[in-house]
């Protein structure tokens, strides 16, 4: 039995073939999968947020798997990831934190294989149609500079006042034309999650 009451799921794949006139070969690709769920605590203060933590655990796997499937890659081919939530007006910012932080990461890491690095995140309160910018970072070494990125998602009819939008992003690549130096993916050890 599903814990989250899911109204809809939107999955997006973006592929960039050309950036500022230069051909990107192979193209960079990133996916987002976004669930629109009922907020069980809309309209009231709830001290114990366990129910949302369990929902986060469920969605980490579900949405992570959808991203990987949409990219048509094996889990090990995933290179970066991110997460974010936007809470409708009858909820509370802390609801986003309860979904995103305690338990969502483990099943997401299973979906992308490994994942030593912190999953970068953002959260906000918002209304239907508002953009949500989901941060992206390399899944095994947070300092890999070529993979710092963000992906905008938005759904015209979500989140309604009593809903929460939960988004996971996964890529098989970094930015299209990285050239600002720093740690490169090929030099990352991927053990401590940082380098």
């Amino acid at each position: 039995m599903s814990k989250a009451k899911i109204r809809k799921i939107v999955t997006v794949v973006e592929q960039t073939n050309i950036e500022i006139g230069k051909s990107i070969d192979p193209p960079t690709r990133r996916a987002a999968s976004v669930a629109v769920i009922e907020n069980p605590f809309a309209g009231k203060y709830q001290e114990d947020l366990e129910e949302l933590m369990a929902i986060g655990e469920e969605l980490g796997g579900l949405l992570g798997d959808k991203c990987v499937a949409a990219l048509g890659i094996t889990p090990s081919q995933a290179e970066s990831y991110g997460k974010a939530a936007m809470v409708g007006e009858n909820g509370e910012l802390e609801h986003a934190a309860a979904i995103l932080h305690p338990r969502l990461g483990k099943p997401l890491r299973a979906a992308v294989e490994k994942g030593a690095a912190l999953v970068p995140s953002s959260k906000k309160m918002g209304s239907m149609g508002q953009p949500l910018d989901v941060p992206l970072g390399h899944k095994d070494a947070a300092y890999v500079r070529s993979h710092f990125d963000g992906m905008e998602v938005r759904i015209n009819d979500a989140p309604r006042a009593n809903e929460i939008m939960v988004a996971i992003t996964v890529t098989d690549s970094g930015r299209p034309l990285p050239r600002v130096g720093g740690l490169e993916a090929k030099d990352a050890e991927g053990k401590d999650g940082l380098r």
Partner: protein
Amino acid sequence: MPDVIVRKTVIVVDEIYHEGGPVASEPLRRASALAVIENPFAGRFVEEITGFIDDLKPLGLQMAADLIAALGGDASVVEGYGKGAIIGEGGELEHAALWHAPGGYSMRELVPASKAIVPSTKKVGGPGCRLDVPVTHSNASYVRSHFDAIEVGINDAPKADEMVVALVMTTGPRIHHRAGGLQASDIVGEDGLK
């Protein structure tokens, strides 16, 4: 005529379980395919533009095939469709009309039950512009349960010298359709209307 230069593509799949009513066991699925292409006519008035229609055909077919793949690979699940285009500020609305034939006929080539005209919309807009792409039943335009629209858009497109072309497909009626009218089960399916 110029080649079609694709900067970026976006595929979106919606899975809709409910909208406040009974939860569907199988979600309604709606897929959108967008391509950001160079507008070969941007920045000046070009009188003769129709040659670009044929140039766009392979892209249309690819996008229609991508949509069917995104919906699981079986074209017979498609029940609704639509198309649209956003022209960047260096172009003109008429450029969007070039998408009618390659966009529409590509989907009708691949979708088995597709006697109905493909509904469409168009506009001129900047990066991040949203477009509400209309959707109707693919075999009989008057089927009321299948009238719908899908909002699409890309935060970094279209730039001034670009256009965004869009195709959309759906696997069924609105999730809680109950506004009467012609039912999909009652269509004759010969004239594309009823």
